[in-house]
């Protein structure tokens, strides 16, 4: 009896203690100070760059104990934009991203390895086309501080390389071996809540 009364209170207290140490940020996608971009080689001749225009996410940041840092991002796959309507139509089709069946991609981090000097290795899982793969990003803090409008912001940039063949797109093979490595660059600015 006693335990059932005390335990929830204890859990709540612990949660509050953690919450106090770590700051909670929402990625500023309203003011669009965040970008999810990719580039892939076109036949090995040049880089083709694109981005996802709609996504949302949040993260926690713990100055004392950065291992607690967590990042969560959800991407609307239909918002792919490579500045070429017919190419985007192909990429959204069932030949590639199949956005009808798989409208969202999600990234959930589980480990933040602080490397010092504002650098870190962020490990997590990316689920895209219903396929979940471990992903590690090299992250660095770009800056943090008070913004001119009374808020507090903190921003990071991160890079990683994904492998096209991991995501089993029906016609990925037609892009050739030069398109196997997809370079990801993301920049996120969080507004502290």
């Amino acid at each position, binding site marked *: 009896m006693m335990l059932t009364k005390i335990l929830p209170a204890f859990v709540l207290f612990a949660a509050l203690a953690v919450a106090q140490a770590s700051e909670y940020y929402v990625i500023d996608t309203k003011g669009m100070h965040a970008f999810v971009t990719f580039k892939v080689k076109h036949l090995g001749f040049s880089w083709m760059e694109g981005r996802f225009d709609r996504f949302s996410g949040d993260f926690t940041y713990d100055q004392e104990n950065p291992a607690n840092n967590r990042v969560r991002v959800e991407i609307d796959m*239909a918002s792919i934009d490579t500045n*070429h*309507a*017919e190419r985007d*139509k192909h990429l*959204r089709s069932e030949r590639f991203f199949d956005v009808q069946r798989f409208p969202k991609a999600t990234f959930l981090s589980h480990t933040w390895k602080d490397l010092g000097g504002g650098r870190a290795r962020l490990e997590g899982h990316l689920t895209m086309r219903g396929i979940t793969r471990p992903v590690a990003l090299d992250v660095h803090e770009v800056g943090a501080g008070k913004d001119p409008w009374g808020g507090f912001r903190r921003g990071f940039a991160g890079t990683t390389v994904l492998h096209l063949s991991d995501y089993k797109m029906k016609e990925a093979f*037609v892009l*050739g071996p030069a398109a196997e490595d997809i370079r990801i660059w993301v920049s996120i600015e969080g507004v502290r809540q």
Partner: protein
Amino acid sequence: MHWRNDPTHYGLVSILLHWLMAALIVGLFALGKYMVGLDYSHPWYLVAPDLHRGLGVVLALLWVSRLIWRLANPRPEILGRPWERRLALWVQRVFYVLIPALALSGYLITTAQGQPLWVFGWGRIPATLYGIAHQEDIAGRVHEWLADGLIALAGLHALAALKHHFIDHDSSLRRMLRPGQPPPRSDS
């Protein structure tokens, strides 16, 4: 030479426009179905859509000329029973609506993100309506439906022409093949 239509016969201009557009419509349909299935590394992957766009613009221009020509000329009386005449007239009208709708939906695919539509190497049509969410996907689906509808209707139109020629033994088909007075038929 009979250039213009009269109340019973088609003139040369109408006949040429009819067959040129018929060939373009069938050709564009086949090319369209063919090109969307092409592999990225296929030699025709870039050429086929360019050709489709260019010929599509040619078809749209022919449609404009044909509309003007039709309004400026008498329309030869449609042959057949009253319901056949009514149906034929409506099929013609739907053709007149479907063709520009196809041209417009095709244009909205290519120009969905503000890029112009190139007409062969000759020139380009700038984008006017673009940036609508999923514009290229919606316009693409509409374009395909309209194309399927147009071809089905063209098939019906062709069957009807053959029926008039072989069953009714009237001059519906012959007068679309030869301008002016058709030679009298001996077997009817």
